[in-house]
C-alpha cells in the first residue's frame, strides 16, 4: 500500500494551527517576512501568500494591529497582538491542548489493544 496523499488534509489542519501560531508569535512586534523566517527556523514551512491574508483577517477582527515603520531603508509593516487577541489565543490554546490530550489518550488506548 502506498503512503496516502495528505496534502489537502494537511492544508485544512494548518488553517487552524496558523491562527494560533501567528497569535503566539506576535507577543513581540514582528513584520511579515521576519515571521516567515522565524517559523522556518523552527522547522515549519508556511506559505508566504497565506500568511498575509491571515494577518489581514486577524486585524479585521481586532485581534492584532499593524503599523508601517518607515525609518529603515525599506518600509516594513509591523504587527502586534491586542488584548482581545491575547484572550483569543488563550482560548484557542486551551482547545488545542484538549485536542492533544484526547489524541494522546486514544493513542495510548490503541497501543494497549
Amino acid at each position, binding site marked *: 500500500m502506498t503512503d496516502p496523499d495528505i496534502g489537502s488534509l494537511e492544508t485544512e489542519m494548518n488553517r487552524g494551527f496558523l491562527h494560533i501560531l501567528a497569535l503566539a508569535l506576535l507577543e513581540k512586534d514582528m*513584520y*511579515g*517576512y521576519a515571521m516567515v523566517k522565524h517559523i522556518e527556523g523552527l522547522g515549519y514551512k508556511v506559505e508566504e*501568500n497565506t500568511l498575509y491574508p491571515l494577518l*489581514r483577517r486577524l486585524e479585521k477582527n481586532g485581534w492584532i494591529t499593524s503599523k508601517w515603520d518607515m525609518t529603515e531603508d*525599506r*518600509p*516594513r*509593516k509591523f504587527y502586534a497582538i491586542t488584548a482581545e487577541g491575547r484572550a483569543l489565543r488563550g482560548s484557542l490554546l486551551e482547545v488545542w491542548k484538549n485536542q492533544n490530550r484526547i489524541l494522546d489518550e486514544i493513542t495510548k488506548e490503541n497501543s494497549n489493544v
Partner: protein
Amino acid sequence: MSDKLEAYLEEISHFLSGRAEREEILSEIRSHILEKAAEGPGEFTDAAVEKAIAAFGPARKVAEKYLDDRPIIAPAYKRYLFRYTTLLFALHSFLTVFAVVFKKDFILFPLVFMPRLGVIEALMYLPTAFLADLGIVTVVLYFITQSGKDVKLPWPKFAVDLDEVKPPTKSFWLSRIATAVGAVIMLAITDFALFLFAKHHTIFFVNLNWNDPRPLFTPDAGRRLSMIVIAMLATSTMALLAKLLTRSLLVDVVSNVISLALIGLLLRQPLDNLFAVESAERILPKIKFGIKFTLLFIALMITIDLIKNLVVLGRRKLAA
C-alpha cells in the same frame, strides 16, 4: 525598482480590482518580496526579485487568498436554482401556449411581456425564455447568498418528486424487455399507418370497411395530417429503439422536442374545409375546439415531461 515586481503587483492589482484595501495589500507584498530579495547572498538583483516572486506564487492565486470564499450561490440554495427555474419556465410555457391559442399579446408588468406568437415562433421563443428564467433565478439567489441571511426558501410539497434523482427501481432486464415490447408494438402501429398511407394517402377513415374505406378528411388535409401523425409515431418508435441501446435521458428530451414541433405543425394546419364527411360540418366548431384542446393538452403533457427530463438531467450534472 524591478520592472518585474511592478508588473507582478499590477497583475495582482487587476485581480483585486474593487477592493478598498488594494493598495495596502500591494504594499505588503512589495515589502515582503524586497525583504526576501535583499536577503540572499550577493547584491540585490533582478534575478533575486524574480526568485522571490516565484516563491510568493502566481498573481491570480495570491489575489484569491485575499478574496472572500463566499460562493455566488450558497450550497444550501443550489438546488433551488433548478427548482425555481422549473416553476418559472412552466409558467412561461403556459403563458406561451396561452398567447398562441388566444392569439393575443399581454403584459404582466414588470415580469412578463408576451407578444402574440405563432406556433413556430413560440417553439423558437421557449429556449430563450428558459435562459431568461435561469438568469432571473440566479440573480435572486445571488442576492440572497450575498445578504448572508438564513432565508428559508419555500418549495411546494407536490413538486418534491419533480427534482429527485431516484435510482431506477426496475431491474435492468425487466426494463429492457418492457422497452422492447413497447418498441415492437409501436413499430407495428407505425408500419400499419405507413401501409394505409401508401395505399389510401390517408390514415383517417370514417368506417373500417377495408374494401371501400371512406376517408374522414379531404384528400389534401388527410395527406398532410397523416404525414405529421406518422412522423409522431415514428419519433416514439425511434425513441424506444434508442432506449434499448442507451438509458440517457437525452433520448427523451430529443423525442419531446420533436413531438412538440410536430404538434405545433398540426396546430398550424387550417381547420376549414377539413372534413370529407358532410354531416360533420354541422358540428364543425365543436370539433375544431375539441381537436385544438386535445392537441394543446398533449403538448402540455409533453412539455411537463420535457421540463422534468431537463431538471433531472441538470440535477445529475450537479450531483456528478
